[in-house]
């Protein structure tokens, strides 16, 4: 009986020792959450944030959105917010191999009024979070060719993130137009 008890204890200790040995330090996720969605919406609407709206992404709107993205959009509908002609969009877009989450507010004139990086999930390229960089987008509109109306100066080492932000900004403007055009 004593031998069995000893054996049981040694087995249990072996499991625990192995568990401790394999435990690594540090997390597997390179992620920074810069802003909560509620805080982004507060920047767009102040205290009176509207309830959500839902847009099925179909037909011509889908075609235009995918054209500015340069790839198929994964998802069948979009959640957005609208009030007095101002719309707000939260969109995920891949920069390198992970998606970043971007919030864009567009005023009734169809100009970008707020652009925020909510979540960044890559180890590099997060410089697009800098306010001075994002400021370049404010006031931009959609051209007839569904492009941004202005030039954006890139950031060395963050080319993919800048490209992704450009795509999402143009997509949000396309979606805003679609909302404005709907009855």
């Amino acid at each position, binding site marked *: 009986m004593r031998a069995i008890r000893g054996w049981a204890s040694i087995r249990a200790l072996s499991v625990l020792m192995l568990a401790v040995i394999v435990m690594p330090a540090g997390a*597997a996720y390179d992620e920074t959450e810069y802003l909560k969605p509620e805080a982004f919406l507060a920047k767009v609407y102040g205290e009176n944030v509207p309830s959500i709206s839902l847009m099925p992404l179909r037909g011509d709107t889908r075609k235009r959105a995918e054209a500015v993205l340069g790839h198929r959009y994964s998802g069948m509908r979009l959640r957005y917010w609208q009030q007095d002609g101002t719309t707000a969009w939260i969109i995920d877009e891949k920069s390198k191999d992970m998606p970043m989450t971007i919030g864009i507010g567009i005023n009734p004139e169809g100009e970008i009024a707020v652009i925020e990086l909510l979540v960044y999930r890559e180890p590099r390229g997060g410089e697009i979070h800098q306010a001075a960089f994002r400021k370049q987008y404010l006031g931009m509109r959609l051209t007839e060719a569904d492009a941004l109306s202005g030039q954006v100066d890139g950031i060395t080492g963050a080319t993919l993130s800048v490209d992704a932000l450009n795509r999402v900004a143009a997509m949000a403007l396309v979606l805003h137009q679609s909302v404005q055009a709907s009855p």
Partner: protein
Amino acid sequence: MNLLSSNAKVLLVGLVLVVLQGCSSLKESDYVPKSPETLSEWMVEGSLELRADGVKSKSHFYFKQIDENYELAILGDDPVGKPKAVILGNIYEPENETLDVIGGYEAEKVAQHLQSVMKAGSLSYWIRGLPATADAKITQQGTNLAKKIEEDNWKIYFHDYMSVTGNYKLPAEIKFNGDSKNLRLDIVRAETGYLTNPCGQNLTDEEIEASVEQAGGEDVVRTLVPRDGSAPLPRWIDEADFCKQLRKIHGNQLPDARVGLYGPDSMMWRLSGMALPGSFGAGRALLLQVAHPWVTAGIDEHSVVRNDPLGRARRTFYHILSVTYGSMPQVMASANQVRDIHEEIEGHLPEESGAFARGSEYRANEINAMIWVHATLWETIVHMYEKMEEPLTQQEKDRFYEETKLFAMLFGIPESALPADWNEFMDYNRAMWASPQLTVTPAAMRLKDDLFKAQSIWMIFPMWGQEIITSAELPPRIRDQYDMKYGWWQKMNYGWMRAGAWTLGALLPKNMERQAVYHEAMARLEGERLGGVNQFFIEAFFDKERLVN
């Protein structure tokens, strides 16, 4: 009483160690999930229990959506069985749901019972923690995580979320409360993409078909390792080449998505499932890879490995294990992610390195370099398995090697560029060990030093041990280039380490002979969630709740 006391001591020692290590490493790190609205090809499976109109219905089920179309399959008592009844519909036309009955009256009754209380189309949203309409009232418990949704006379509570592939979190336990009716869904697992298409959808069918395979010529080994010691001609792989190989696997060879690339009868699962050969050979495989100047340059100039060598090892093995043990969608997700990471890795060699000239171009997505990285894995796993477990027959090695070709194809490498069989594969390995293509550069030396540097007090012994094991098992020429010693001191230590490992193997419970991811894959095949100590290991080592379930 004595037994309790003895176990209590063991538990106390264990708890002290665990607390010292830090409680943060016991559970997966938290992360902000992607919005489940961005899912267009997905499925979940689990069980349902519905009580309504004085009737109780129970069944296993899966819910699958491909773009606009969804299907809710009633499986009956078998969690991985064939559908017995299927509700089909389109999210934009929820009134036109149809019911197909394949397997009998009981399944039909469950499906009709469910249809009497809700549209399956609404479930396509609720099951992901989303509102079905803009009229819903939502209470959040975090970004993209609903706590409660009130809609269509239901109060829907989301009690638990599971982490799934692609940075999503989906509800694991959902309770629907309505007037005199309630429904409970327990979700076991989910797929979040790559159900119908194995690669990204940036290319047309014509572009993929137009891709020309870059074969290895008549003498594959000499194409990869030229006799004169020069570097092989680069053969770049673009997205179309990559996609063409993925389509071959996805479309033609592997019909059972749940099993994935290999399955429990494969040599791959047999060899890589054992915990000890893999853990003893990890350093050998990594240093053989890094002895290739392209690999070193790619890591040194593009990776965060210098600051986080264990992290790089963990990410590498995460993808290797996902491809080896994952379901087909998980395999394809991992292959695409690795390709995306590799796509950005390119540059020019900063110095002359053996067969490679200073300033010559390198890229991660290149056939010769990728074949070498693959070779280090498979040659090492067989080498260590034979040393630590049992010898393999020629037939078993040939079978194993045939299986590794599928793995290579997932990285865009055409089968014709690979050595034909195990013997030719070993000729290739030996030629590489002797070739100036493998040259340990100063950057490789730094990577080696970083790799074996203990990051915490708990890692001092494992890292010291891993360095001795690696030194013992590396081909002598490469070991000398790394300036690693293998004299009497190292031989003595390696001797007792192997004996200790053998003893540990004998002491550990039988089901711990195989590594945790193997058990997780087996749970998937049985339609179950992993739990217990293997779940603990996965979260502790990979910092992920699940890899292949």
